[in-house]
């Protein structure tokens, strides 16, 4: 193909990516801001009186964020270190548990928490004879910590895997015991990763509305209030205003995060180096960490087991019995929903990973300023509550020329662009690993930029594309916040059905759907690891 023609394709591709980010991320954001700030054409700030009148909401959100951050970071550090120091077998088990629990369908975990740890909880009351109210801030903090810790631990484990082992060997060679090594070497070296994990937890806690809704009791937070403004009060402006208030601390924290992220090159999904470090498993600190990690892992396992158990059992007059009724009952509601959900997840997984990669290509290989700005914008959906992004879409796309409400397309676009932050970060870390000279070689041999994308960027990013695909797929399978306001009757997705049946009290059926969602995600994840390990083996043979 003549270069002129390729130049045009190249330009068009970039334009398309940039435009899509402007339209599908920035514009919805602006729409929310506009709704919150502008009334009848003039700036109107009266809605912000919430800040004063209900300042306790802000306080609640912030303190919950801080507590959750501390707790989930602590747990994830313990798990990561325990993992790091374990044998390969134990590592596999831990990673298995983490991978299973990283897929956490909303609501179900919180409900299973009440079931297990409530006033009449199976564990608190049934086994320990305690009658503690599970509601309130403590419940939220515990549940959020439980939900975030798996992802955090996986991030930390990935980081530890990249650490130069000679740090530890040097310390040993100088006489350091296990406790010293953890205290003096591992923890300080983990600092940048820990910071990232803390920031992520804080942002996620701020934007979580479903946990407080279920187990908040009288304790309310901003994100939930925004959600309730819509469903109870029918007041979108109030919701937009609250979202905007939430956006500010999240944005500040996010700026800090960006700074850190650059120094944390790869935060890959569980593909840590197989070789373990050899440190004697002894000492006070190690045992503390081990107990903490095992405690958490057991806790999370029990919760998931209870979900799965709920799918297969029911209660009658206080007696538990095995049944497949929930499956039978759920069949009706999910038969056509599941294929559609998988389809949507599939498309959003693929599209977001491809767009993420190409965006990073323009931003960091081609060094276009405009693409770098887009890269920043592309990260914004990560830091707002899902409902914010959903409301943004309704507000932005309800009138021509971009009248998309009511179509499946708007749902797909929404979930796709919501996954973009993750995809682009993964894309960045892969691209930064590709040798620049490999790219230069193409041009050196006479190939146009277009061929760089086609022949180098894509083939070499295969495994990271797959990671971000799996992530996008999994997230879309379990997402609800951002699409709950977008979906029309004919586009219902699995989580919404789960939401519905749980709302109508059929916890058992909800568990079945949760179980199926987890299963689907596990199969997709498993496929990925299967392919990856086969590739690994093929390499080893040579």
């Amino acid at each position, binding site marked *: 193909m003549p270069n002129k023609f390729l130049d045009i394709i190249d330009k068009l591709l970039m334009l398309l990516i940039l435009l899509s980010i402007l339209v599908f991320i920035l514009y919805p954001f602006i729409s929310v801001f506009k709704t919150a700030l502008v009334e009848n054409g003039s700036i109107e700030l009266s809605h912000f009186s919430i800040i004063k009148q209900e300042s306790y909401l802000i306080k609640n959100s912030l303190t919950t964020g801080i507590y959750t951050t501390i707790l989930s970071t602590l747990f994830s550090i313990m798990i990561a270190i325990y993992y790091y120091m374990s044998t390969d077998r134990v590592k596999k088990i831990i990673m298995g548990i983490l991978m299973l629990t990283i897929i956490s369908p909303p609501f179900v975990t919180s409900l299973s928490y009440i079931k297990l740890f*409530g006033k009449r909880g199976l564990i608190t009351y049934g086994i320990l004879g305690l009658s503690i109210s599970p509601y309130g801030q403590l419940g939220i903090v515990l549940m959020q910590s439980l939900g975030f810790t798996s992802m955090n631990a996986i991030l930390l484990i990935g980081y530890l895997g990249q650490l130069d082992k000679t740090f530890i060997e040097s310390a040993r060679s100088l006489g350091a015991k296990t406790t010293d090594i953890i205290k003096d070497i591992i923890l300080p070296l983990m600092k940048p990763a820990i910071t990232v994990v803390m920031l992520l937890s804080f942002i996620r806690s701020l934007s979580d509305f479903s946990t407080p809704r279920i187990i908040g009791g009288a304790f309310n937070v901003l994100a939930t209030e925004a959600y309730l403004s*819509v469903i109870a009060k*029918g007041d979108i402006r109030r919701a937009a205003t609250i979202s905007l208030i939430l956006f500010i601390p999240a944005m500040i924290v996010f700026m800090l995060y960006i700074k850190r992220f650059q120094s944390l090159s790869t935060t890959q999904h569980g593909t840590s180096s197989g070789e373990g470090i050899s440190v004697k498993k002894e000492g006070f600190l190690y045992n503390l960490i081990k107990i903490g990690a095992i405690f958490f892992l057991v806790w999370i396992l029990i919760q998931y087991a209870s979900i799965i158990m709920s799918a297969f059992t029911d209660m009658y007059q206080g007696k538990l019995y095995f049944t497949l009724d929930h499956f039978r009952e759920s069949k009706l509601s999910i038969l056509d929903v599941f294929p559609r959900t998988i389809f949507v997840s599939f498309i959003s997984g693929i599209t977001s990973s491809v767009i993420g990669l190409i965006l990073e290509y323009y931003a960091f290989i081609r060094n276009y300023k405009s693409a770098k700005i887009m890269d920043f914008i592309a990260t914004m959906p990560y830091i707002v509550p899902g409902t914010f992004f959903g409301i943004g879409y309704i507000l932005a796309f309800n009138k021509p020329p971009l009248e998309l409400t009511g179509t499946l397309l708007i749902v797909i676009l929404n979930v796709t662009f919501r996954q973009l932050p993750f995809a682009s970060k993964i894309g960045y870390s892969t691209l930064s690993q590709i040798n620049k000279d490999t790219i230069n070689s193409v041009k050196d041999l006479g190939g146009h930029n277009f061929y760089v994308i086609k022949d180098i960027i894509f083939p070499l990013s295969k495994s990271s594309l797959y990671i971000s695909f799996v992530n996008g797929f999994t997230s879309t399978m379990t997402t609800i916040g951002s699409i709950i306001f977008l979906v029309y009757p004919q586009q219902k997705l699995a989580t919404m059905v789960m939401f519905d049946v749980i709302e109508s009290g059929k916890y058992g059926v909800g568990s079945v759907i949760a179980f199926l969602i987890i299963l689907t995600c596990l199969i997709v994840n498993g496929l990925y690891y299967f392919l990856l390990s086969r590739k690994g083996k093929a390499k080893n043979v040579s």
Partner: protein
Amino acid sequence: GQGTDNKKDVTEPQNQEAKEDGNTNEEEKLDFEGRQMNVVTTSEKYVELFDQFAKEVNAKVDFLSMSSGEVISRIEAEGGKPMADLWFGGGIDAFMAAKDAGLLESYIPKEADKVNSQFRDEEGYWIAKGLTVVGFLVNEELLKEKGLEVPTTWEELADPKYKGEIIMANPAISGTNYAAVKGILDMYGEEEGWAYLEKLNNNIPFYGKRGKDPEEKTVAGEFAIGIIPVDKTSFDLAEKHNLTVIYPEDGIPWVPEGVAIFKNSDGADIAKAFIDFMLRDENQEKLAELDGKDGAQMVKEGISGYDLGLPKDRLIDQDISTFGTMREAILSKWEELTTGK
């Protein structure tokens, strides 16, 4: 296709037989081949009814569960664009508000005359599909542990001895609980009603943010008394978990559940056909079955539902017309009363 509706006659009893066999009737029959009706509804449970209708008129029916508040704010956010054809279920107040906002289309169904005028809009913008009645779900065992007896009236419920044992959902979210508040105000009268609510509020540690909260949390043993919509499932649940369902003796609040057609929707004609379909006796019975309703909860006279022992005479004499108009005022006052819960 509005004309087609009118041509169709009232279904005769013999057709009913044929339909129950799942067969077409011999008379002229509506056919919406290749078309679709979208429904927003309150629950998944109506799927059977929708399927039956779909089969009868040869159309596809898709539905989505959504709370009334959500329906209204979404339509508003989307600039008045209808999000479905049919709106099926949900507290009548939202329907009244939607009518005022001009979001609904008027239609007088064929059997409208057989429905008590209290249960339908005079101008035909909405019609009720049944009544939600409010009662208590009680965990006797728990009460016994605390040495408390089972409350049978609203009056008793406000007794300080039940402090911390009662769960109710936020009336802004739950239509049932809005009905409870509205019913109490109608029963006691404005002033006394608020005084009562204040007393009740002292007994309630927090208000659930989901409609199902009271029921679920009572079942889970988190609370001894839940204020719930009473229907067959409540009784089933009670049996399953050793609980008791109480119709309050001093008055049962209630609220009609609305059905309406969205203005300018593509499938308005199908939705109209559906309302006619729904009002047919055999389908009313099906609906009663699906909803788990006592016959007394149905809007058409003489429909037999479950026998749940609903004492019709104890239904509070409510002013339906102010259900929608007073909503905002009631809720904001209520919110003031309960700040922080």
